[in-house]
């Protein structure tokens, strides 16, 4: 058994570099997600682990085996790496039945016939496809194809499972259920897994750890919760959906301690939660954590007043765009007022806003 260690991984296609000096360790049995916009190098990283690409520098270790070491000119070809992979297009072979698809990796490993049969049955049962073994790929629905591909990946995997955006061709509902299915199977088989996606919610739901990538570099590594709530930098904050981001312009000393002056005239006390805030950094917060302030209600946080310039109904919440200074807006989500509520907010109205200090994140 073993984890995966990427060391100084680099991959260039001609003059463009897809991955820059990537170091990453995935613990044995962990499921890590590579998350990022398209072209961020996540798929290339995955393919390097699979052996479908050869890196231009660095090394990859799977368990105790070094599968690639560019300096030592060592490359283990993909068919000897014993990894399972689920492709975006499923890549089910159309000339074989589902069962033959699943049996193929076992045949390649010269497993005895009865054992193959047993394993195929087990794998199909695990993904709930035992009834469809003799169907061809085109006779399956999208979700079933996905399950078949999963089963094939599972039997092929020695210690490592790789997922290349496996859910992106499914509709939203199916995606939700397959998501938990993949996690369930992971918990059952405990492969070391790398999962590539650009969908943050998928990543949040499925991963032990998330790696956010951009431009071939790692922006942040962390638990799903960390990444979602405490982004390390502007890119991650933006990527995981922080609607509000204000650059810090200066830090003033006041009686109650240092206060950072941010874009839009936002005054942010520099305390424990906002430690390290200084020019060059920025504060970020989510729209749904912004509150309507009752005037004269003192609390630790940021208060600001502005004029509502836009209001959008978004089902669970109302989203306001509030202008706090010329060209500077705060996005605010407020729960939709119940019909019994008397207070409503109109465009053009001036309102007071308040963000509790613990909900503010300092990003680089």
């Amino acid at each position, binding site marked *: 058994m073993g984890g995966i260690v990427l060391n100084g991984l680099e991959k260039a296609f001609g003059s463009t570099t897809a991955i820059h000096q990537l170091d990453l360790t995935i613990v044995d049995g962990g499921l890590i997600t590579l998350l990022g916009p398209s072209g961020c190098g996540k798929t290339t990283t995955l393919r390097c682990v699979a052996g479908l690409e050869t890196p231009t520098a660095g090394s990859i270790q799977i368990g105790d085996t070094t599968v690639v070491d560019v300096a030592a000119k060592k490359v283990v070809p993909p068919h000897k790496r014993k990894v399972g992979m689920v492709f*975006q297009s499923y890549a089910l072979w159309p000339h074989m039945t589902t069962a033959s698809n699943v049996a*193929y990796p076992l045949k390649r490993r010269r497993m005895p016939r009865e054992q193959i049969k047993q394993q195929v049955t087990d794998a199909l049962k695990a993904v709930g496809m035992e009834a469809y073994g003799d169907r061809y790929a085109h006779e399956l629905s999208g979700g079933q194809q996905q399950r078949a591909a999963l089963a094939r990946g599972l039997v092929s995997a020695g210690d490592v499972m790789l997922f290349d955006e496996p859910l992106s061709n499914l509709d939203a509902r199916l995606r939700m259920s397959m998501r938990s299915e993949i996690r369930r199977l992971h918990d059952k088989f405990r492969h070391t897994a790398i999962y590539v996606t650009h969908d943050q919610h998928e990543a949040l739901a499925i991963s032990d750890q998330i790696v956010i990538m951009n431009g071939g570099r790692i922006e942040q590594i962390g638990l799903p919760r960390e990444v979602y709530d405490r982004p390390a930098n502007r890119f991650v904050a933006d990527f995981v959906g922080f609607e509000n981001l204000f650059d810090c312009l200066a830090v003033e000393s006041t009686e109650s301690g240092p206060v950072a002056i941010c874009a839009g005239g936002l005054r942010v006390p520099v305390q424990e939660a906002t430690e390290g805030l200084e020019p060059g950094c920025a504060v970020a917060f989510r729209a749904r954590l912004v509150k309507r302030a009752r005037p004269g209600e003192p609390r630790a946080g940021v208060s600001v007043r502005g004029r509502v310039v836009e209001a959008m109904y978004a089902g669970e919440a109302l989203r306001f765009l509030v202008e706090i200074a010329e060209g500077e807006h705060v996005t605010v989500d407020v729960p939709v007022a119940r019909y019994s509520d008397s207070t409503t907010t109109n465009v053009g109205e001036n309102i007071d806003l308040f963000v509790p200090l613990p909900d503010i994140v300092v990003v680089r």
Partner: protein
Amino acid sequence: MNAQQVDSFVAPGAISATSSRRKRSLDPFGKIQWPVAICGVLLFVSPVIMIVVGAFRTTPFTGGRWTLDAMAEVFTNPATYRASWETASIAVVTVLISMVIAIFFVTLSTRTNSPLRGLIPAMMAFVVAMPPLFYGISWGLLGNQTSGLLNEFITVFWAFDSGPVNAESWWGLVAVSALRSVGFQYFLLLGAFMAMDRSLEEAARLSGASPVRAFFTVQLPVLFPAIGGVTILSLIVFLESFDIPAILGIPAGIYVLPTEVFNYLNSGAGPEYARASALSLILITIMLLLVYLQYRMMGRRSFVTVSGKGDNHGTWDLGRWRWPAALAIVLYALFAAVLPVTQLVVGSLAPFMGASSGFSFDNFAEVLENEKIMYAFGLTAIVAAVGAAIAVLVSFVMLWAAKLRRGVPRTLIGTAQWLPAALPGIVLGLGVLWFFLLLPPLRGLVGTPFSLVFAMVISVIPLAGRAVEGAIAQVPMSLEEASWASGANKFTALTGITARIMSPSLINGWLLSFVVLSGTLAIPLLLSSTTGGLLSVHVYKAYTAGRVELAAAIFVLLMIEILLVTALAVIVRVLLQRKRATYLGRPQVRGQEGNLNDENTR
């Protein structure tokens, strides 16, 4: 603005067109299939029916009566069976060898980093453009045991009493036919190989298959329909090929079915239409059998799911095999194109074919000064261009209609467009002629360019169809559906979306058809009476009068014309592709629209 929305622009449904979805969404339009199927049967089957009828008539023209004599005569003649056996064995060996070579070169040019692989398409185009008559003659000269260039070259290095290479032999016939077949097989396979989803092969690699094993257990089987179709077509094309067997086979005592058909049609006692038709029935039967065989082999498996969704990187690094691969390309180019073309050009400069001195441009001067031949140049270009365009258009409409829905019409369309392939050119020409004579409204068109183009279109349909077929499979129906949804009617959707996206493949199909039609002889010989002869007819005249050198000069000019047109078509295709790249944006479609829904459900 959320960063993750930057690259979400296409619904995932757009790339997951399963067969059930396709079927459901197209049901209301199924009606269109029947008229297309009926037209197809009328177009392609009626000349064949005329041939079948012809086998049982004393004369296919007015005043004949029904008879079984011809059938009895042909099928009791042992020569028929000898020729059938000879034809079949040579066809099978030739096609097997040439398919292996063609697959090898398609793989080299689409999947590897072999040096010189960029030359392969040009080289193959050259081979296709070489008319079989001259291919046969060139190789007859090159591979002559006493005076062939090849043998003279070899005997410089090794001492042989007589040249070791003899083109006029069983293996010579097979080798030369195979070299030539590779050309069009390559083009017919190209689309399928390029469109194949690479992840299918990658999945095999990750499942523990070595590159070679992945190639043989996944890539080849997945491409089976394409490979099977091309194999069948090559078999049929060989079954009706006349020139090379006549030139290289007869000196070796090899007689094949097309030579026998020719013998009946040109018999000293006058043309024996009935016997020739009866013999052609063997070809038709074999062809139907082959198509049925392919259908059976495919069985329940459907290959529509093979599509170009995967990323296209991932060529094999051949490593130290790069140079042997390059050498293979050079060797093939030498034997299949350079040597025969050189022989042809040398012949066109010679005062007589086979001369070793006195070379000049006199033959070219003679051709260029001949108004009729010059006129024929333009006429041939126009007829071939129009014929090829119609053939591609007809194939496109028929195959598109066939794709709409499963059922009887689909089978009809599928089989009908194969039928013309089973008829040797002259027999097909006769079938078309009799068909026209049978219907009074069409009778007046006999001998006009209309009947000529009609027959040429039919003759080239099986070839054009293969090129179009591959292209149609690449276009997901959903793209067309999207344009219906956008308010386009069926026709606009077809021409505006499907045809536009496929246009590079359609141009390929057109080019292939154009090249073949430019050199085709049997049909214009029969049907071009009032239009003036096409170029091939002039070549035939010169050739039969022993003016081989003049015929060679005309052909050299024809090759130049074909190369110019090819260059033009390539430019158009490149322009179209560039345009297409801009309006389709990023080809790697990543479905993402579910995110907004997720936002709400959280």
